[in-house]
């Protein structure tokens, strides 16, 4: 029982990070109509910057802010000066460019900072609180949950309650019609990339202290699990990403605790397979495909 409570609560905290990263994949999918296979590498670059800023300034918060800013800038640069030049009529060139970008970014980080793990300290204790003798969430887990909730809430308001959010949604689903109604679609695509990579960078920043430390591949497993969660949720659906992120996080935590860490990816894969067999477009997929 104690073990179950502990695994569930840890799973929730890990799931929140997964959900955040999955949400970043949904945002970029809506903007670019493609899965960004460079998401992990693009997310980890701002984390290195945050690490350097925190080391230089002594403030975790400066580091966090710089990760968001650098993530947004990186998203804009990659979209404007790289992906916009790639032919859009079929997805293959974009995927190849993304894989090339992963290699360049990860090799660049290894050259600049070395390929080794760097230990990263969490801003709060990672020792679980004990409630009635049962270990539950740590202060850092709580921090992660709060940050994830705040960011998701802010994104929900941005997308659903603001003018720019309406333009982002309109442009994502019907770019041609949006253009005829005066929406600056290319600007919306850039903005989508900025929001996406900033969100992904934040998720990676939150993840790193709970793992082995910082290295150029530190977000790779996060990407794989978050991709599974995004597909389970429906790729187009922010709510789907949130729910599926939490489910995958809890599932991985339970399987790791009761079986082994090596079994967890298999469990995620099994869940993904079952969902896709039952609902090929994911659990929360929109009723119909987008219009051109």
């Amino acid at each position, binding site marked *: 029982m104690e073990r179950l409570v502990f695994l569930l609560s840890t799973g929730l905290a890990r799931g929140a990070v997964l959900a955040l990263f999955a949400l970043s994949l949904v945002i970029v999918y809506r903007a670019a109509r493609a899965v960004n296979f460079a998401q992990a590498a693009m997310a980890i670059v701002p984390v290195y910057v945050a690490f350097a800023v925190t080391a230089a300034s002594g403030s975790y918060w400066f580091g966090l802010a710089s990760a968001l800013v650098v993530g947004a800038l990186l998203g804009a640069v990659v979209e404007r000066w790289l992906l916009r030049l790639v032919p859009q009529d079929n997805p293959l060139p974009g995927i190849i460019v993304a894989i090339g970008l992963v290699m360049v970014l990860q090799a660049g980080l290894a050259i600049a900072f070395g390929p080794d793990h760097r230990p990263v300290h969490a801003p709060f204790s990672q020792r679980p609180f004990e409630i009635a003798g049962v270990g539950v969430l740590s202060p850092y887990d709580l921090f992660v949950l709060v940050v994830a909730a705040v960011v998701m809430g802010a994104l929900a308001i941005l997308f659903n309650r603001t*003018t720019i959010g*309406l333009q982002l*949604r*309109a442009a994502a689903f*019907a770019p041609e*019609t949006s253009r*005829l*109604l005066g929406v600056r679609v290319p600007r919306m695509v850039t903005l989508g990339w900025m929001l996406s990579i900033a969100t992904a960078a934040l998720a990676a920043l939150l993840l790193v202290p709970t793992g082995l430390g910082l290295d150029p591949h530190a977000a790779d497993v996060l990407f794989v699990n978050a991709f599974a969660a995004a597909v389970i949720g429906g790729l187009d659906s922010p709510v789907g990403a949130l729910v599926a992120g939490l489910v995958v996080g809890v599932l991985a935590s339970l399987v790791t605790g009761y079986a082994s860490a090596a079994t967890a990816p298999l469990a995620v894969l099994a869940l993904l397979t079952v969902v896709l067999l039952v609902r090929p477009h994911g659990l929360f997929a929109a009723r119909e495909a987008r219009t051109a």
Partner: protein
Amino acid sequence: MTTTTSETASSNTADSPPRLEVSGLTVTFGGLTALDDVSFTVADGEIVALIGPNGAGKTTVFNAVCGLVRTRRGEVRVGGVPAPSSTTGLLGAGVSRTLQGLGLFEHLTVLENVLVPLTSVGASTSTSVDTAQEVLGALGLSALAAVPAGTLPYPERKRVALARALVTRPRLLLLDEPAGGLGATDIDQLAQTVRTVSDGGCAVLLVEHHVDFVMDVADRVVVLDFGHVIACGTPDEVRRDPAVEEAYLGVPVSAGGALGREERS
């Protein structure tokens, strides 16, 4: 029947420049001349119908007005000045259009659909919502404001498309087959709406296959065939024009619902 007055019937007598003035418009696609020396005007408050068989060039006229096709010769003026070529410029000049095939954002609510054009003219969020609600109310769509547009039946979707074109309070409204696919009741309602809009001073240019609707609502009718204007005048004049009957392969224009040679597109 139409409430045509002598001033609106002939826009040339107006002092101010016509809202829309198309003069000598020629558009070619490769070797094909889609429009050949087309000229007509639409005055403020006037309803002009553009009719003609399939492929006559009606949609191309709309596209030329909106700067979506390159014109070879001729000019389009809106309010006395050359028509802007950018979408935002056109919205600023008070031009709006409905799209063939509706082009609704299916997953967005009716209200959100109508709000999209307002986001690009820089209106504040609260005034935008008020304006949008007002237009929805005028078209009897208030109760459906929160419903995703894609779930509505066709006549309601068509009204949403019209609301979206009206929400920017256009001075020139371009309607691409507004009556297409509608039943008699909905067409009557549409005619009412179009008349109200035009009574408010808006110039309306519409492309339509439904002859009864055109004859009912239009102040003037411009007939295109193979890119040429073959007739232009009041509905009655055009109805009696032998060249028009010939263009429709001898089917009298007054005979029925749709013009002879045409198919719905």
